[in-house]
């Protein structure tokens, strides 16, 4: 690559990087590590529940495990795995050299990493609080319902880790959200109109708007809780005239858009993978895009369907039932368009396609069980039981995780320059597919037969022991499938087939450049004339790929230490708060301010 310096190597180059591709890889490996931790927590949970009256862990440990499993999977695994594709793929799909604010992007990553480490440190630091290891991790559920999470009922530091950790992670998500909105709106290549954006980029854009609007809501809820716990405020204390139900409204006002934050990126991935491997454009592109936007809006009007047992009254229950059922319409429209995309195509059964089709097949189950609890009277028997656990895992595992794996198999060659083994990939898919159905399908019956969720033990009298055993076996089968995937990653690193620019015949811009792309992405910024720039269609021929070498040297900004340094201030502030030591909080705040100040005045050329 004449005209461009070779990419820098070494630890420093990673700590100071502002390259969206490197940050994407950092997101991937970090989030995947947290995914493994969250998975291990799930395995211990399933080991405990394999038989009635289980004694693998204590009640207190179990409560920490399911709290951290949910929190980890939502905030530390699924969201940042999506973020890894936002980072790596979106700038390539819109023909940009990087995101709009590369250093802010690095800051988002470091805050995410440090926030995740802070939350998980709670597993180990018990002795500092005169408690054992595995004793001070958050234990109020990922939903953290007040008033159980008030100091009166949860006096230990457990909930403090959660309240502070989630606030840190929120900063990361918000910074990234603004960054990607500006990137997608402002850095599109010439001719890349909004309605020419690839579907994945579109769903990324909708997701970012949801993030910047939903995260402030949970931040407010968390700040209230923090004030209650640290300063004796009474935002959720009914004796003071407030109500703990306020927390539920705030949490689910965030929490339901959050569900779409988790699923829309996977829907975007599926909307890329299906057309590529059916060799047919996405059917009803406009409708798929608009239904995604519509879901984004409607996702704001359904939060109380998480609260049908709270006693909001028949009018409120009826309204939220109606809005919730309505949201099934744009979701169904997407599914029909995906099937219509496959219909009449020439479908190549790659691993990525397997996962994308698995997404559709499993997401339907989660969507339909969702309709059964959109009906409040029916939901009274379902909410807070394993039936709902089955539902969310069909949506978030059958949906989001299968969708993310489709993305991994699809874009891994672009991100690393090597193709993952298709044989191992298919083993991975089928083990995971069978495993997840064994693990989660019986939960429908377990719930309908009366087993509540979040219980560390159950009586053999319930008659659900064998179903629970099947579920546990399924969970361990999923673990085996993940091991196959890890082996595939390891093997590919050494022996994987080298990827050409475009191993799949994709239509979007990321396939027009080398795998992995050079540091500046495009030697010449492409001019886009259609929605499927690299395909021959009835209206136009495929575009010319950019030349391998840039005609003139391309300036690439150097790295910066300041995003990392500023990010370090946040966990220090949180540690100070947990230790009730003001000067540590102030030191952390000072570091954050110094970091931001120096960042702002850093000379552009390094």
């Amino acid at each position, binding site marked *: 690559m004449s005209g461009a310096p070779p990419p820098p190597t070494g630890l420093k180059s990673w700590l100071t990087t502002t390259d969206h591709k490197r940050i994407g890889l950092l997101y991937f490996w970090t989030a995947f590590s947290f995914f493994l931790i969250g998975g291990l927590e799930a395995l211990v949970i399933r080991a405990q529940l394999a038989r009635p009256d289980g004694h693998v862990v204590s009640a207190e440990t179990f409560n920490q495990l399911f709290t951290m499993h949910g929190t980890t999977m939502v905030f530390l695994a699924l969201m940042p795995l999506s973020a890894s594709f936002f980072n790596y793929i979106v700038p390539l799909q819109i023909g940009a050299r990087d995101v709009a604010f590369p250093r802010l992007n690095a800051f988002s990553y470091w805050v995410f990493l440090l926030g995740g480490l802070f939350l998980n440190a709670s597993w180990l630091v018990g002795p500092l609080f005169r408690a054992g290891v595995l004793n001070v991790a958050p234990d109020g559920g990922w939903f953290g319902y007040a008033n159980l999470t008030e100091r009166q009922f*949860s006096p230990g530091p457990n909930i403090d880790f959660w309240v502070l950790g989630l606030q840190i992670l929120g900063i990361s998500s918000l910074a990234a959200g603004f960054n990607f909105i500006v990137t997608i709106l402002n850095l599109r290549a010439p001719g890349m109109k909004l309605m020419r954006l690839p579907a994945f980029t579109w769903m990324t854009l909708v997701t970012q708007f949801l993030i910047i609007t939903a995260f402030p809501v949970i931040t407010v809820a968390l700040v209230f809780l923090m004030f209650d716990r640290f300063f004796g405020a009474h935002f959720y204390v009914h004796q003071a005239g407030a109500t703990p139900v306020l927390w539920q409204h705030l949490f689910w006002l965030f929490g339901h858009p959050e569900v779409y934050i988790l699923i829309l990126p996977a829907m975007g991935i599926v909307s890329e993978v299906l057309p590529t491997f059916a060799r047919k454009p996405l059917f009803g592109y406009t409708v798929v895009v608009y239904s995604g936007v519509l879901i984004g809006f409607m996702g704001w009007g359904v939060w109380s369907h998480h609260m049908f047992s709270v006693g909001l009254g028949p009018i409120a229950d009826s309204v939220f039932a109606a809005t919730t059922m309505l949201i099934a319409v744009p979701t169904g429209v997407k599914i029909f*368009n995906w099937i219509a995309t496959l219909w009449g195509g020439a479908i190549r059964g790659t691993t990525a396609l397997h996962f994308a089709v698995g997404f559709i097949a499993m997401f339907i189950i989660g969507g339909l069980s969702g309709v059964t609890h959109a009906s409040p009277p029916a939901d009274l028997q379902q909410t807070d039981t394993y039936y709902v656990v089955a539902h969310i895992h069909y949506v978030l595992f059958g949906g989001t995780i299968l969708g993310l794996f489709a993305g991994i198999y699809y874009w891994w060659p672009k991100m690393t320059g090597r193709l993952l083994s298709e044989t191992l990939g298919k083993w991975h898919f089928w083990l995971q597919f069978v495993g997840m159905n064994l693990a989660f399908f019986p939960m429908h019956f377990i719930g309908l037969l009366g087993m509540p969720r979040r219980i560390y033990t159950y009586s053999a009298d319930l008659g659900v022991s064998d179903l629970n055993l099947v579920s546990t076996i399924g969970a361990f089968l999923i673990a085996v499938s993940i091991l196959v995937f890890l082996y595939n990653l390891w093997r590919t690193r050494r022996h994987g087939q080298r990827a050409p620019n475009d191993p799949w015949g994709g239509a979007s811009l990321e396939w027009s450049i080398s795998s992995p792309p050079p540091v500046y992405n495009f030697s010449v910024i492409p001019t886009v004339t259609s929605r499927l720039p690299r395909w021959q269609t009835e209206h136009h021929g495929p575009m010319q790929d950019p030349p391998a070498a840039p005609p003139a040297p391309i300036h690439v900004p150097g790295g910066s230490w300041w995003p990392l340094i500023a990010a370090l201030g946040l966990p220090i502030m949180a540690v100070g708060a947990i230790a009730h030591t003001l000067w540590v909080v102030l030191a952390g705040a000072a570091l954050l301010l110094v970091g931001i100040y120096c960042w702002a005045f850093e000379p552009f050329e390094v």
Partner: protein
Amino acid sequence: MTATLALSGCGGPFPQSTLHPRSDFARATDVLFTDIFWWAAAVFVVVELLLVVALVRFRHREGRPAPKPAHGHTLMEIAWTLAPAVILVFVAVPTVRTIFSTSGVAPADALKVQVIGHQWWWEFRYVDLALTTANELHVPAGKTVRVGITSADVIHSFWIPPLGGKRDAIPGQTNYIAFRADSTGDYSGQCAEFCGASHANMRLRVIVDTDSAFGAWAQNQLGPPVTPPKGSLAEQGKAVYARSACIGCHVIQGVSAGVIGPSLTHVGTRTTIASGLFPNDSAHLARWIADAPAMKPGSIMTRMQPPLSDGDIAALVAYLELLK
């Protein structure tokens, strides 16, 4: 929902099954669920079938012409927008009707019970009978019971699946359900909202009696506690009770007036202890008195300090078992 149950291959008794409704309330929600289930099952079959057909029929084969680039089809889009919308109307109408019919309204002569959730046990107050008991709810068959649900500490959720769907027990707020049990029987339920360390151990039982058996039970509960015979082990037990920490939290009419824990005035009539966790027999009572947290993690009833002697515990157990 017997079809679903048959699928699960289980034939045994399921005491907490939502699929075996035993009251008007539970039946109303079950009918609705069954309705929606069949709609969902139909949609599931159609969509998965389309998906499988597409995958088999349109798999890539060498030599086939390239697929036609179909970009969309307005009529089809309209059709598959309207189809789910129409189905949802068929779901929404009975839903709204059932919301209103199950909103806790009850005839004026309904039996009124106040349910108060505690970490981790249930208190039941029969409003019109001035009667208080714990963990085992007695109601008459064939008569509407109106349950007002609230909490003394954190949020719980009151749930007896065969008799009806759950409602949350929220401090500072009372939620109502109403149900009429079909026939006599013994039902189990448990707290459904995560409420701390022993959430899993916050169970309850509902005993549906005939009208006359219920009347007799209530009559007995309203009476004073049994006085142990002179010189009996139980009399020693009463003395142990009166000089121990027990009196700080528990009420036995005429003996102690604590209000933190369950009333013990007629504890001997209950079939279980520790909120439905263990049978009410001398072995379990003795273990419970000695070290409650070992049987129920986080229990507010702490280990006895200093520990009671084995003799004292045996006497106490004899006394409690006498309190029929």
